[in-house]
């Protein structure tokens, strides 16, 4: 009690550190929910199969659908022979189109071409389309 000012400033420093600590915890408690609120839901990557009515994929036609949040395509190239691919072009990410006259995929962005097996036929794409596993179940086509 000889010099109250020293006493005061010591107390203040101590309280200040304490406040900083509590403030840090509170900030974290506020930031975490906001992060989770905005973070894309992690449940998206579930491994569930996507089923499609077989009738929706006629012979020599392609059917576009959403596979785990990304565009995909399933096609019946020969009777009863189904194949599915990611519909995202491996060049710069445009979505490919099916050209029935040519029986091949065309990327409208830079004219990349892919075969019914997903192989590159021409244009800038560096890699074949990503293939997705397909199974038949009665009148359903299961992808994934």
């Amino acid at each position, binding site marked *: 009690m000889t010099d*109250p*000012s020293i006493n*005061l*400033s010591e*107390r*203040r420093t101590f*309280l*200040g550190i*304490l*406040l900083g600590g*509590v*403030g840090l*915890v*509170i900030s974290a*408690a506020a930031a975490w929910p906001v992060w989770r609120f905005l973070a894309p839901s992690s449940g998206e990557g579930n491994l569930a199969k996507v089923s499609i009515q077989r009738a929706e994929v006629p012979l020599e036609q392609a059917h576009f659908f959403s596979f785990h949040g990304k565009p995909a395509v399933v096609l019946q190239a020969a009777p009863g022979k189904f194949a599915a691919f990611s519909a995202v072009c491996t060049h710069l990410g445009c979505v490919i189109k099916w050209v029935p006259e040519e029986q091949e995929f065309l990327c409208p962005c830079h004219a990349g071409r892919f075969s019914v097996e997903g192989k590159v036929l021409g244009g800038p794409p560096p890699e074949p389309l990503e293939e997705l596993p397909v199974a038949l179940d009665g009148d359903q086509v299961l992808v994934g």
Partner: protein
Amino acid sequence: MAMSPERGFIGVPAYEAVPDFCGRCHIGVKEDYLLSAHGQAIAEGGANCVTCHGNHVVVKAGPEIINPEDCSQCHGYGQAGEIKAAIVKTDEMLASLAENLGFMGKKGIAVKSMESETFALRNDFRRLFHSVNVEKISNETADFQQRGMAIQQKIDAVQTELDQRKLIGGVVTGLLVLASLICFLIRKTYQQEEDGSS
């Protein structure tokens, strides 16, 4: 006046026609009822809908309408009592499920799918005991119990989460109060300084 045919009053259905009348809406229950001992015996005066449920003062039916007085008007209470014993617990459980869900819905929890699941389950259960077949009822009640439990588990999971939220909320509230107190204490150190200097 109100009972004139022009105004749509179709008169009292004949005793045997009552199940058809009620069954226009209670389709499932009617089906099981008609196959039951009650329904099969309707021509000989077997109980119809109104016998147990009453006519105009239809009350929300509960297990209490199975009781010695009413049942023994026609037959011994033995079997009826067994049926009652078999369904009471499940019926109560389904009722409390519906109640819990209603309660949660009022707090903003999305309960619609669980509610329709419970509704369908209760409906099926009512069909079951309208068969008044003791053996069938005791065999299948367990299944209903289980399906009810599954819904109850979902409810419990939600409740656990709600409780957890409260816990965390309590901690955060506490931290904020603490921060406030610390600030007041720091303020006090300045206050003392100010008072000292003036």
